[in-house]
Protein backbone atom coordinates (compact mmCIF):
# COMPACT_ATOMS: atom_id res chain seq x y z
CA UNK A 1 0.00 0.00 0.00
CA UNK A 2 1.47 3.38 -0.96
CA UNK A 3 0.13 6.84 -0.56
CA UNK A 4 0.77 7.96 -4.11
CA UNK A 5 0.74 11.73 -3.55
CA UNK A 6 2.69 11.56 -0.31
CA UNK A 7 5.47 9.63 -2.02
CA UNK A 8 5.68 12.42 -4.64
CA UNK A 9 5.66 15.13 -2.03
CA UNK A 10 9.01 13.86 -0.74
CA UNK A 11 10.66 14.98 -4.02
CA UNK A 12 12.55 18.17 -3.28
CA UNK A 13 11.68 20.89 -5.79
CA UNK A 14 11.09 24.64 -5.80
CA UNK A 15 7.34 23.95 -5.87
CA UNK A 16 7.49 21.54 -2.91
CA UNK A 17 8.91 24.32 -0.74
CA UNK A 18 6.02 26.74 -1.36
CA UNK A 19 3.32 27.16 1.31
CA UNK A 20 0.42 24.94 0.11
CA UNK A 21 -2.13 27.69 0.86
CA UNK A 22 -0.56 29.92 -1.79
CA UNK A 23 -0.30 27.01 -4.20
CA UNK A 24 -4.03 26.32 -3.79
CA UNK A 25 -4.81 30.00 -4.36
CA UNK A 26 -2.64 29.94 -7.50
CA UNK A 27 -4.37 26.75 -8.64
CA UNK A 28 -7.80 28.35 -8.25
CA UNK A 29 -6.89 31.36 -10.41
CA UNK A 30 -5.17 29.25 -13.07
CA UNK A 31 -8.11 26.81 -13.28
CA UNK A 32 -10.53 29.69 -13.76
CA UNK A 33 -8.33 30.93 -16.61
CA UNK A 34 -8.15 27.43 -18.13
CA UNK A 35 -11.92 27.22 -18.21
CA UNK A 36 -12.39 30.74 -19.69
CA UNK A 37 -9.93 30.51 -22.60
CA UNK A 38 -11.53 30.08 -26.03
CA UNK A 39 -8.71 30.68 -28.49
CA UNK A 40 -6.64 27.56 -29.21
CA UNK A 41 -3.39 29.59 -29.28
CA UNK A 42 -4.01 30.86 -25.77
CA UNK A 43 -4.79 27.30 -24.64
CA UNK A 44 -1.49 26.25 -26.21
CA UNK A 45 0.34 28.95 -24.22
CA UNK A 46 -1.37 27.77 -21.03
CA UNK A 47 -0.35 24.18 -21.82
CA UNK A 48 3.28 25.25 -22.30
CA UNK A 49 3.15 27.21 -19.05
CA UNK A 50 1.66 24.29 -17.10
CA UNK A 51 4.29 21.96 -18.58
CA UNK A 52 6.93 24.35 -17.29
CA UNK A 53 5.44 24.05 -13.80
CA UNK A 54 5.44 20.26 -14.07
CA UNK A 55 9.11 20.32 -15.04
CA UNK A 56 9.82 22.50 -11.99
CA UNK A 57 8.01 19.92 -9.84
CA UNK A 58 10.55 17.26 -10.89
CA UNK A 59 8.05 14.40 -11.09
CA UNK A 60 9.25 11.02 -12.21
CA UNK A 61 8.71 10.18 -15.88
CA UNK A 62 6.75 7.04 -15.03
CA UNK A 63 4.32 8.95 -12.82
CA UNK A 64 3.69 11.57 -15.49
CA UNK A 65 3.32 9.10 -18.35
CA UNK A 66 0.75 6.99 -16.52
CA UNK A 67 -1.37 10.09 -15.73
CA UNK A 68 -1.00 11.39 -19.26
CA UNK A 69 -1.97 8.00 -20.66
CA UNK A 70 -5.15 7.93 -18.59
CA UNK A 71 -6.14 11.46 -19.66
CA UNK A 72 -5.38 10.86 -23.34
CA UNK A 73 -7.32 7.60 -23.25
CA UNK A 74 -10.33 9.45 -21.85
CA UNK A 75 -10.17 12.12 -24.56
CA UNK A 76 -9.37 9.75 -27.43
CA UNK A 77 -13.05 9.28 -28.44
CA UNK A 78 -13.51 13.08 -28.76
CA UNK A 79 -10.31 13.37 -30.80
CA UNK A 80 -11.72 10.78 -33.22
CA UNK A 81 -15.38 11.79 -33.35
CA UNK A 82 -15.05 15.60 -33.55
CA UNK A 83 -12.92 15.69 -36.77
CA UNK A 84 -15.22 13.12 -38.40
CA UNK A 85 -18.29 15.20 -37.57
CA UNK A 86 -16.93 18.71 -38.18
CA UNK A 87 -13.86 18.34 -40.41
CA UNK A 88 -11.02 20.84 -39.80
CA UNK A 89 -13.04 22.83 -37.23
CA UNK A 90 -13.69 19.62 -35.31
CA UNK A 91 -10.02 18.75 -35.46
CA UNK A 92 -9.08 22.10 -33.90
CA UNK A 93 -11.83 21.67 -31.27
CA UNK A 94 -10.48 18.22 -30.37
CA UNK A 95 -6.92 19.57 -30.07
CA UNK A 96 -8.08 22.52 -27.94
CA UNK A 97 -10.17 20.26 -25.70
CA UNK A 98 -7.31 17.85 -25.11
CA UNK A 99 -4.79 20.67 -24.56
CA UNK A 100 -7.12 22.31 -22.05
CA UNK A 101 -7.60 19.02 -20.19
CA UNK A 102 -3.85 18.39 -20.11
CA UNK A 103 -3.23 21.93 -18.84
CA UNK A 104 -5.68 21.40 -15.99
CA UNK A 105 -4.11 18.06 -15.09
CA UNK A 106 -0.58 19.52 -15.21
CA UNK A 107 -1.58 22.52 -13.09
CA UNK A 108 -3.30 20.33 -10.52
CA UNK A 109 -0.37 17.94 -10.32
CA UNK A 110 2.24 20.69 -10.06
CA UNK A 111 0.34 22.69 -7.45
CA UNK A 112 -1.27 19.90 -5.38
CA UNK A 113 0.87 16.78 -5.62
CA UNK A 114 4.00 18.64 -4.53
CA UNK A 115 2.75 18.80 -0.93
CA UNK A 116 1.77 15.95 1.40
CA UNK A 117 -1.93 15.30 1.07
CA UNK A 118 -2.56 16.13 4.74
CA UNK A 119 -0.96 19.56 4.23
CA UNK A 120 -3.10 20.19 1.16
CA UNK A 121 -6.23 19.37 3.16
CA UNK A 122 -5.14 21.60 6.02
CA UNK A 123 -4.29 24.38 3.55
CA UNK A 124 -7.71 24.04 1.95
CA UNK A 125 -9.29 24.41 5.36
CA UNK A 126 -7.06 27.38 6.18
CA UNK A 127 -8.21 29.25 3.06
CA UNK A 128 -11.87 28.70 3.85
CA UNK A 129 -12.92 25.38 2.31
CA UNK A 130 -15.62 23.94 4.66
CA UNK A 131 -14.19 21.48 7.17
CA UNK A 132 -16.82 18.90 6.24
CA UNK A 133 -15.42 18.76 2.70
CA UNK A 134 -11.80 18.62 3.84
CA UNK A 135 -12.59 15.84 6.33
CA UNK A 136 -14.43 13.85 3.65
CA UNK A 137 -11.45 14.30 1.31
CA UNK A 138 -9.00 13.14 3.97
CA UNK A 139 -11.05 10.10 4.99
CA UNK A 140 -11.73 9.13 1.37
CA UNK A 141 -8.04 9.36 0.56
CA UNK A 142 -7.19 7.34 3.66
CA UNK A 143 -9.73 4.58 3.22
CA UNK A 144 -9.48 4.07 -0.51
CA UNK A 145 -6.21 2.26 0.23
CA UNK A 146 -7.79 0.07 2.89
CA UNK A 147 -10.56 -0.80 0.45
CA UNK A 148 -7.95 -1.62 -2.17
CA UNK A 149 -6.29 -3.91 0.37
CA UNK A 150 -9.63 -5.57 1.15
CA UNK A 151 -10.28 -6.03 -2.54
CA UNK A 152 -6.80 -7.50 -3.11
CA UNK A 153 -7.36 -10.00 -0.26
CA UNK A 154 -10.76 -11.02 -1.60
CA UNK A 155 -9.31 -11.39 -5.09
CA UNK A 156 -6.52 -13.63 -3.81
CA UNK A 157 -9.09 -15.65 -1.89
CA UNK A 158 -11.33 -16.29 -4.92
CA UNK A 159 -8.34 -17.09 -7.13
CA UNK A 160 -7.14 -19.57 -4.48
CA UNK A 161 -10.53 -21.26 -4.81
CA UNK A 162 -10.12 -21.69 -8.53
CA UNK A 163 -11.78 -18.54 -9.87
CA UNK A 164 -10.56 -17.39 -13.26
CA UNK A 165 -11.87 -14.17 -14.77
CA UNK A 166 -13.58 -15.12 -18.01
CA UNK A 167 -16.28 -13.55 -20.14
CA UNK A 168 -19.13 -15.64 -18.81
CA UNK A 169 -22.07 -15.26 -16.47
CA UNK A 170 -20.33 -16.95 -13.53
CA UNK A 171 -17.40 -14.49 -13.69
CA UNK A 172 -19.68 -11.47 -13.87
CA UNK A 173 -21.86 -12.61 -10.97
CA UNK A 174 -18.76 -13.40 -8.87
CA UNK A 175 -17.33 -9.92 -9.52
CA UNK A 176 -20.74 -8.46 -8.64
CA UNK A 177 -20.86 -10.35 -5.35
CA UNK A 178 -17.28 -9.39 -4.46
CA UNK A 179 -18.06 -5.72 -5.18
CA UNK A 180 -21.23 -5.93 -3.09
CA UNK A 181 -19.35 -7.49 -0.18
CA UNK A 182 -16.72 -4.78 -0.47
CA UNK A 183 -19.41 -2.10 -0.15
CA UNK A 184 -20.95 -3.82 2.88
CA UNK A 185 -17.53 -4.07 4.52
CA UNK A 186 -16.92 -0.38 3.73
CA UNK A 187 -20.15 0.56 5.46
CA UNK A 188 -19.23 -1.51 8.52
CA UNK A 189 -15.75 -0.02 8.60
CA UNK A 190 -17.19 3.50 8.26
CA UNK A 191 -19.32 2.83 11.33
CA UNK A 192 -16.33 1.60 13.33
CA UNK A 193 -14.30 4.63 12.28
CA UNK A 194 -17.16 6.93 13.32
CA UNK A 195 -17.22 5.22 16.75
CA UNK A 196 -13.45 5.64 17.11
CA UNK A 197 -13.71 9.33 16.20
CA UNK A 198 -16.59 9.91 18.62
CA UNK A 199 -14.57 8.30 21.41
CA UNK A 200 -11.86 10.87 20.84
CA UNK A 201 -14.21 13.80 21.15
CA UNK A 202 -15.01 14.39 17.46
CA UNK A 203 -18.19 16.46 17.23
CA UNK A 204 -18.30 17.09 13.49
CA UNK A 205 -15.92 20.04 13.51
CA UNK A 206 -12.50 19.54 11.96
CA UNK A 207 -9.71 21.00 14.05
CA UNK A 208 -6.19 21.12 12.73
CA UNK A 209 -2.94 22.69 13.77
CA UNK A 210 -1.94 25.25 11.21
CA UNK A 211 1.82 25.03 10.92
CA UNK A 212 2.13 27.04 7.71
CA UNK A 213 4.62 29.86 7.26
CA UNK A 214 4.34 32.32 4.42
CA UNK A 215 7.52 33.59 2.79
CA UNK A 216 7.81 36.45 0.33
CA UNK A 217 8.55 33.96 -2.44
CA UNK A 218 5.21 32.18 -1.78
CA UNK A 219 3.30 35.42 -2.33
CA UNK A 220 5.35 36.34 -5.40
CA UNK A 221 4.71 32.86 -6.84
CA UNK A 222 0.95 33.11 -6.33
CA UNK A 223 0.78 36.63 -7.73
CA UNK A 224 2.88 35.60 -10.75
CA UNK A 225 0.63 32.62 -11.55
CA UNK A 226 -2.48 34.77 -11.12
CA UNK A 227 -0.97 37.47 -13.34
CA UNK A 228 -0.15 34.95 -16.09
CA UNK A 229 -3.70 33.60 -15.84
CA UNK A 230 -5.16 37.11 -16.06
CA UNK A 231 -2.95 38.06 -19.03
CA UNK A 232 -4.02 34.91 -20.89
CA UNK A 233 -7.72 35.60 -20.31
CA UNK A 234 -7.39 39.28 -21.33
CA UNK A 235 -5.38 38.35 -24.46
CA UNK A 236 -7.98 35.71 -25.29
CA UNK A 237 -10.77 38.29 -25.08
CA UNK A 238 -8.81 40.80 -27.20
CA UNK A 239 -8.20 38.18 -29.90
CA UNK A 240 -11.88 37.27 -29.92
Amino acid at each position, binding site marked *: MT*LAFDALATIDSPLARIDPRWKLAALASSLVAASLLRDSRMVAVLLAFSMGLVLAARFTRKFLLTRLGAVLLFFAPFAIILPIQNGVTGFYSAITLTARALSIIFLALALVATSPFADVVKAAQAIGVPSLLTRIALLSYRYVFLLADDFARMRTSIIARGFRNRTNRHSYSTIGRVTGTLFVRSAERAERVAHA*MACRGFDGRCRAMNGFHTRLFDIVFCVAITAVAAILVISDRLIQ
Partner: protein
Amino acid sequence: MSNDGDLSVVGLTFSYPGSAPALRGVTFEIAAGEVVGLIGPNGAGKTTLFLCLAGVLPVRDGRLSVCGLNPALPDERRKLPLHVGVVFQNSDDQLFNATVFDDVAFGPLNLGLSPDEVRSRVTESLATVGLSGFEPRVPFHLAGGEKRRVALAGVLAMRPSVLFLDEPTVFLDPRGRRELLSLLTKIPGTKMIATHDLEFVLATCTRVLLLESGKVVADGQTRAILADAELMDAHGLEVPPSLK
Protein backbone atom coordinates in the same frame (compact mmCIF):
# COMPACT_ATOMS: atom_id res chain seq x y z
CA MET B 1 -13.79 14.95 39.86
CA SER B 2 -13.86 12.91 43.08
CA ASN B 3 -15.14 9.69 41.48
CA ASP B 4 -12.83 9.86 38.46
CA GLY B 5 -12.06 6.30 37.42
CA ASP B 6 -15.13 4.72 39.05
CA LEU B 7 -17.67 2.77 37.02
CA SER B 8 -21.12 1.72 38.11
CA VAL B 9 -23.48 -0.23 35.84
CA VAL B 10 -26.93 -1.34 37.00
CA GLY B 11 -29.36 -3.29 34.82
CA LEU B 12 -27.84 -2.22 31.50
CA THR B 13 -29.84 -3.60 28.58
CA PHE B 14 -29.08 -2.73 24.98
CA SER B 15 -30.39 -3.94 21.62
CA TYR B 16 -29.24 -3.08 18.11
CA PRO B 17 -32.21 -2.13 15.88
CA GLY B 18 -34.12 -5.22 14.79
CA SER B 19 -31.96 -7.61 16.84
CA ALA B 20 -32.22 -9.53 20.09
CA PRO B 21 -30.71 -7.73 23.12
CA ALA B 22 -26.90 -7.68 22.98
CA LEU B 23 -26.73 -6.78 26.69
CA ARG B 24 -29.27 -8.05 29.24
CA GLY B 25 -29.36 -6.48 32.69
CA VAL B 26 -25.60 -6.12 33.04
CA THR B 27 -24.66 -5.05 36.57
CA PHE B 28 -21.22 -4.49 38.09
CA GLU B 29 -19.07 -1.88 39.80
CA ILE B 30 -15.42 -1.08 39.27
CA ALA B 31 -13.36 1.05 41.63
CA ALA B 32 -10.82 3.59 40.42
CA GLY B 33 -7.49 1.97 39.52
CA GLU B 34 -8.85 -1.57 39.14
CA VAL B 35 -7.74 -3.62 36.14
CA VAL B 36 -10.59 -5.86 35.05
CA GLY B 37 -10.63 -8.51 32.35
CA LEU B 38 -13.79 -8.91 30.28
CA ILE B 39 -13.95 -12.41 28.84
CA GLY B 40 -16.55 -14.43 27.02
CA PRO B 41 -17.19 -16.17 23.74
CA ASN B 42 -17.65 -14.31 20.45
CA GLY B 43 -20.88 -12.32 20.36
CA ALA B 44 -21.10 -12.15 24.16
CA GLY B 45 -21.48 -8.34 24.03
CA LYS B 46 -18.00 -7.23 25.12
CA THR B 47 -17.51 -4.56 22.44
CA THR B 48 -21.13 -3.40 22.80
CA LEU B 49 -20.58 -2.95 26.54
CA PHE B 50 -17.52 -0.78 25.88
CA LEU B 51 -19.38 1.32 23.33
CA CYS B 52 -22.26 1.85 25.77
CA LEU B 53 -19.90 2.84 28.57
CA ALA B 54 -18.00 5.22 26.26
CA GLY B 55 -21.26 6.92 25.29
CA VAL B 56 -21.06 5.88 21.64
CA LEU B 57 -24.20 3.73 21.70
CA PRO B 58 -27.33 5.31 23.18
CA VAL B 59 -28.33 3.70 26.47
CA ARG B 60 -32.00 3.75 27.42
CA ASP B 61 -32.41 0.88 29.88
CA GLY B 62 -30.25 0.78 32.97
CA ARG B 63 -28.32 3.18 35.18
CA LEU B 64 -24.74 3.98 34.28
CA SER B 65 -22.16 6.12 35.95
CA VAL B 66 -18.75 6.45 34.34
CA CYS B 67 -16.41 8.77 36.25
CA GLY B 68 -19.53 10.29 37.77
CA LEU B 69 -21.06 10.97 34.35
CA ASN B 70 -24.20 9.40 32.94
CA PRO B 71 -23.66 8.38 29.26
CA ALA B 72 -27.44 8.42 28.75
CA LEU B 73 -27.56 12.21 29.17
CA PRO B 74 -26.32 14.14 26.10
CA ASP B 75 -24.65 16.92 28.12
CA GLU B 76 -22.72 14.45 30.24
CA ARG B 77 -22.01 12.12 27.28
CA ARG B 78 -20.16 14.96 25.54
CA LYS B 79 -17.76 15.17 28.50
CA LEU B 80 -16.92 11.45 28.46
CA PRO B 81 -13.95 11.66 26.02
CA LEU B 82 -12.19 13.74 28.70
CA HIS B 83 -12.31 10.75 31.05
CA VAL B 84 -12.70 7.61 28.96
CA GLY B 85 -10.43 6.21 26.26
CA VAL B 86 -11.20 3.28 23.98
CA VAL B 87 -8.55 1.31 22.08
CA PHE B 88 -10.36 -0.54 19.31
CA GLN B 89 -9.77 -4.09 18.15
CA ASN B 90 -8.60 -3.09 14.68
CA SER B 91 -6.10 -0.22 14.81
CA ASP B 92 -6.88 0.65 11.19
CA ASP B 93 -10.31 1.81 12.34
CA GLN B 94 -8.68 4.22 14.74
CA LEU B 95 -5.85 5.61 12.64
CA PHE B 96 -7.26 7.92 10.00
CA ASN B 97 -4.84 10.80 9.70
CA ALA B 98 -1.96 11.08 7.29
CA THR B 99 0.80 11.25 9.92
CA VAL B 100 1.32 9.72 13.36
CA PHE B 101 1.52 13.25 14.82
CA ASP B 102 -1.86 14.23 13.38
CA ASP B 103 -3.43 11.03 14.58
CA VAL B 104 -2.23 11.36 18.16
CA ALA B 105 -3.11 15.08 18.10
CA PHE B 106 -6.67 14.39 16.90
CA GLY B 107 -8.12 13.85 20.41
CA PRO B 108 -6.31 16.73 22.17
CA LEU B 109 -7.36 19.09 19.35
CA ASN B 110 -10.97 18.02 19.85
CA LEU B 111 -10.59 18.88 23.53
CA GLY B 112 -9.80 22.45 22.44
CA LEU B 113 -6.26 22.48 23.86
CA SER B 114 -3.70 25.07 22.76
CA PRO B 115 -1.24 24.09 20.00
CA ASP B 116 1.65 24.02 22.50
CA GLU B 117 -0.28 21.76 24.86
CA VAL B 118 -1.25 19.50 21.93
CA ARG B 119 2.41 19.20 20.84
CA SER B 120 3.50 18.47 24.39
CA ARG B 121 0.85 15.74 24.81
CA VAL B 122 1.74 14.13 21.49
CA THR B 123 5.43 14.03 22.43
CA GLU B 124 4.65 12.66 25.88
CA SER B 125 2.22 9.98 24.66
CA LEU B 126 4.53 8.76 21.92
CA ALA B 127 7.37 8.57 24.45
CA THR B 128 5.13 6.55 26.79
CA VAL B 129 4.43 3.96 24.10
CA GLY B 130 8.07 3.96 22.98
CA LEU B 131 7.50 5.62 19.61
CA SER B 132 9.38 8.92 20.00
CA GLY B 133 10.44 10.20 16.60
CA PHE B 134 7.54 8.54 14.80
CA GLU B 135 5.64 11.85 14.45
CA PRO B 136 6.11 12.31 10.67
CA ARG B 137 5.56 8.63 9.81
CA VAL B 138 2.50 7.48 7.86
CA PRO B 139 0.40 5.34 10.27
CA PHE B 140 -0.78 2.90 7.59
CA HIS B 141 2.79 1.87 6.79
CA LEU B 142 3.61 0.80 10.35
CA ALA B 143 3.82 -2.77 11.61
CA GLY B 144 0.84 -4.21 13.51
CA GLY B 145 2.42 -3.69 16.95
CA GLU B 146 3.43 -0.12 16.09
CA LYS B 147 -0.07 0.68 14.84
CA ARG B 148 -1.49 -0.64 18.11
CA ARG B 149 0.90 1.56 20.07
CA VAL B 150 0.05 4.65 17.98
CA ALA B 151 -3.65 3.94 18.60
CA LEU B 152 -2.91 3.67 22.32
CA ALA B 153 -0.86 6.91 22.21
CA GLY B 154 -3.82 8.65 20.57
CA VAL B 155 -5.98 7.64 23.50
CA LEU B 156 -3.36 8.35 26.18
CA ALA B 157 -2.87 11.87 24.77
CA MET B 158 -6.36 12.64 26.10
CA ARG B 159 -5.22 11.53 29.59
CA PRO B 160 -8.25 9.36 30.36
CA SER B 161 -8.79 7.99 33.83
CA VAL B 162 -10.59 4.93 32.40
CA LEU B 163 -9.19 2.87 29.54
CA PHE B 164 -11.17 0.27 27.59
CA LEU B 165 -9.06 -2.06 25.47
CA ASP B 166 -10.89 -4.25 22.97
CA GLU B 167 -8.89 -7.35 22.01
CA PRO B 168 -5.56 -5.55 22.47
CA THR B 169 -3.41 -8.57 21.60
CA VAL B 170 -5.15 -9.56 18.38
CA PHE B 171 -2.93 -9.11 15.26
CA LEU B 172 0.16 -8.86 17.51
CA ASP B 173 3.19 -11.13 17.24
CA PRO B 174 4.72 -12.46 20.50
CA ARG B 175 7.12 -9.53 20.76
CA GLY B 176 4.34 -6.98 20.20
CA ARG B 177 2.22 -8.76 22.81
CA ARG B 178 5.08 -8.71 25.32
CA GLU B 179 5.70 -5.00 24.70
CA LEU B 180 2.01 -4.22 25.14
CA LEU B 181 1.91 -6.20 28.38
CA SER B 182 4.85 -4.26 29.77
CA LEU B 183 3.33 -0.97 28.58
CA LEU B 184 -0.07 -1.58 30.14
CA THR B 185 1.42 -2.30 33.54
CA LYS B 186 3.03 1.16 33.46
CA ILE B 187 -0.15 3.07 32.53
CA PRO B 188 -2.07 4.23 35.59
CA GLY B 189 -5.86 4.38 35.93
CA THR B 190 -8.83 2.07 35.64
CA LYS B 191 -8.58 -0.44 32.82
CA MET B 192 -11.03 -2.91 31.31
CA ILE B 193 -9.53 -5.40 28.88
CA ALA B 194 -11.80 -7.46 26.64
CA THR B 195 -9.92 -10.37 25.19
CA HIS B 196 -9.80 -14.08 24.35
CA ASP B 197 -6.14 -14.13 25.38
CA LEU B 198 -6.62 -15.53 28.88
CA GLU B 199 -2.89 -15.64 29.64
CA PHE B 200 -2.87 -11.89 28.99
CA VAL B 201 -5.79 -11.46 31.38
CA LEU B 202 -3.94 -13.51 33.97
CA ALA B 203 -0.88 -11.29 33.61
CA THR B 204 -2.67 -7.94 33.70
CA CYS B 205 -5.99 -8.19 35.55
CA THR B 206 -6.84 -8.62 39.20
CA ARG B 207 -10.51 -9.27 38.51
CA VAL B 208 -12.54 -10.85 35.73
CA LEU B 209 -16.08 -10.43 34.42
CA LEU B 210 -17.36 -13.35 32.35
CA LEU B 211 -19.99 -12.27 29.86
CA GLU B 212 -22.18 -14.62 27.85
CA SER B 213 -25.18 -13.75 25.66
CA GLY B 214 -25.17 -10.24 27.08
CA LYS B 215 -25.25 -11.32 30.75
CA VAL B 216 -22.57 -11.25 33.43
CA VAL B 217 -22.35 -14.91 34.46
CA ALA B 218 -19.30 -14.64 36.72
CA ASP B 219 -17.47 -11.83 38.49
CA GLY B 220 -14.50 -12.46 40.72
CA GLN B 221 -10.77 -12.82 41.24
CA THR B 222 -8.90 -13.61 38.03
CA ARG B 223 -7.25 -16.83 39.15
CA ALA B 224 -10.38 -18.21 40.79
CA ILE B 225 -12.46 -17.74 37.64
CA LEU B 226 -9.89 -18.75 35.04
CA ALA B 227 -8.96 -21.91 36.98
CA ASP B 228 -12.60 -23.06 37.22
CA ALA B 229 -12.57 -25.67 34.43
CA GLU B 230 -16.29 -26.39 34.69
CA LEU B 231 -17.25 -22.71 34.43
CA MET B 232 -14.85 -22.06 31.58
CA ASP B 233 -15.99 -25.11 29.64
CA ALA B 234 -19.67 -24.24 30.12
CA HIS B 235 -19.08 -20.89 28.44
CA GLY B 236 -16.93 -21.97 25.51
CA LEU B 237 -13.62 -21.01 27.13
CA GLU B 238 -10.59 -22.96 28.33
CA VAL B 239 -8.46 -22.81 31.44
CA PRO B 240 -5.20 -21.08 30.38
CA PRO B 241 -2.25 -23.53 30.12
CA SER B 242 -0.36 -21.85 32.97
CA LEU B 243 -3.21 -22.69 35.39
CA LYS B 244 -3.59 -26.33 34.35
